[in-house]
């Protein structure tokens, strides 16, 4: 060993170079596996919704629109998720379907008057202002031809065909949702020059940030 160090240019230098490169590549691969596969798994905790909600049943079978439950209040604010009270307008005494989850919802929430602690996939950080009213069908359908489901799923997870509520991934450090809309997704429309003038869309900071 000492001999080699004293004469670095001597003898089998090619194999020694390779000997130096191999640990590097092994390390690189290990780092990539850790960074791309192991770390994201460690960073996010997987959580299921407290009650399995099937959007498919409501939209396809009961032929409801998104806005039947996710509506606007009179003061222009968006109600977001429906309360147990508004679910109970249909799901009150007897379950309407066969799903045991529905029976559990009636027993555990409607009868006790408790609110469901839904995980909100789209929960935005506190410094984001989002106006549902501004992103209306009337505004977008000046040029597009969206149905309500199509418009909502531009930003939200397309749950219309899902029987099982998707798993919610929460960032363990920030407690933000992994599935929330990122700014580059907002920019697809807000930074799109064809939207200026046609819509009231603007890319000014204060339009979305507070």
């Amino acid at each position: 060993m000492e001999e080699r160090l004293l004469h670095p240019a001597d003898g089998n230098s090619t194999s020694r170079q390779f000997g130096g490169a191999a640990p590097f590549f092994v390390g690189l691969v290990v780092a990539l596996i850790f960074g791309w596969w192991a770390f994201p798994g460690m960073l996010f905790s997987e959580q299921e919704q407290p009650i399995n909600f099937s959007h498919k049943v409501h939209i396809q079978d009961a032929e409801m629109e998104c806005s039947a439950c996710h509506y606007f209040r009179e003061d222009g604010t968006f109600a977001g998720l429906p309360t147990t009270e508004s679910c109970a307008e249909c799901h009150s005494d007897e379950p309407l379907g066969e799903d045991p989850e529905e029976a559990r919802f009636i027993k555990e929430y409607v009868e006790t008057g408790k609110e469901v602690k839904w995980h909100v996939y789209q929960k935005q950080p506190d410094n984001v202002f989002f106006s549902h009213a501004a992103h209306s069908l009337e505004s977008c359908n000046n040029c597009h031809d969206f149905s309500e489901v199509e418009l909502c799923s531009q930003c939200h997870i397309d749950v219309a065909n899902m029987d099982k509520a998707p798993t919610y991934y929460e960032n363990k450090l920030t407690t933000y949702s992994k599935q929330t809309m990122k700014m580059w997704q907002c920019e697809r429309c807000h930074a799109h020059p064809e939207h200026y003038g046609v819509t009231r869309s603007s890319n000014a900071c204060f339009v979305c940030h507070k």
Partner: protein
Amino acid sequence: METKEFTIKWGMAIDLDKCTGCGACMVACQAENNLAPIADASNKIKVMNWITVYELSNGKPYPEHDVAYLPRPCQQCGHPPCVSVCPVIATDKNEEGGIVSQVTPRCIGCRYCMAACPYHARYFNWRDPVWPGGLEKALTPDVSVRPRGVVEKCTFCHHRWMAAKDKAIVEGRDPMDLPEGEYVTSCTEACPNGAITFGDLNNEEHEVAKLASSKYAHRLLERLGADTQVYYVSRREWVLRQLDNYLEDEKVKG
């Protein structure tokens, strides 16, 4: 320097002859914009007031003695000195309405803007806000709470404009053509004397536009050329004289 033009230009006219210096605007602002109360407000390093009331005096002895009070929100300059110095575009004037934005999560706390602002309208968070006695439950949900290390300032209660626009959209009205009074700032609403008038300076039907075009309307340090959107109205010559730096023999308009 060119001033950016907007269809709507939110502005304020403050009647200094009506202002009694009660400070209701400051209190309303603190409550509306989630400014944490501090134990010792005499500590001017720590105290945060997006709008603050200055006392003006004519400096004369008793029979001629007179005072005035000057509430000072962010002046929402037409070409804001704070915007051009910001290295990270945390503050900008690019939105319809002409309100100078301040996006605090983007702010790196360098405080160039504070040095640049001729009106001392910007404040730096030296400490994290503390909400005693469960006060955090009474925070305005539409206003983000700022951590230590960032600069903040008056935004003309921008969130109220957003709410007013949303209401107009849901009712099927044009959100860019709000009737007068549908969007006003918290200080405007709180002033018991009606000294503050808020509205669109570009809309001639709005009271604020009429007040701003009056010969008694002056702006703070107008000759700096910042083209501010806050006007001060007074019929007292000595008050108007203190709004800018005049030479002794110089005449003040109005």
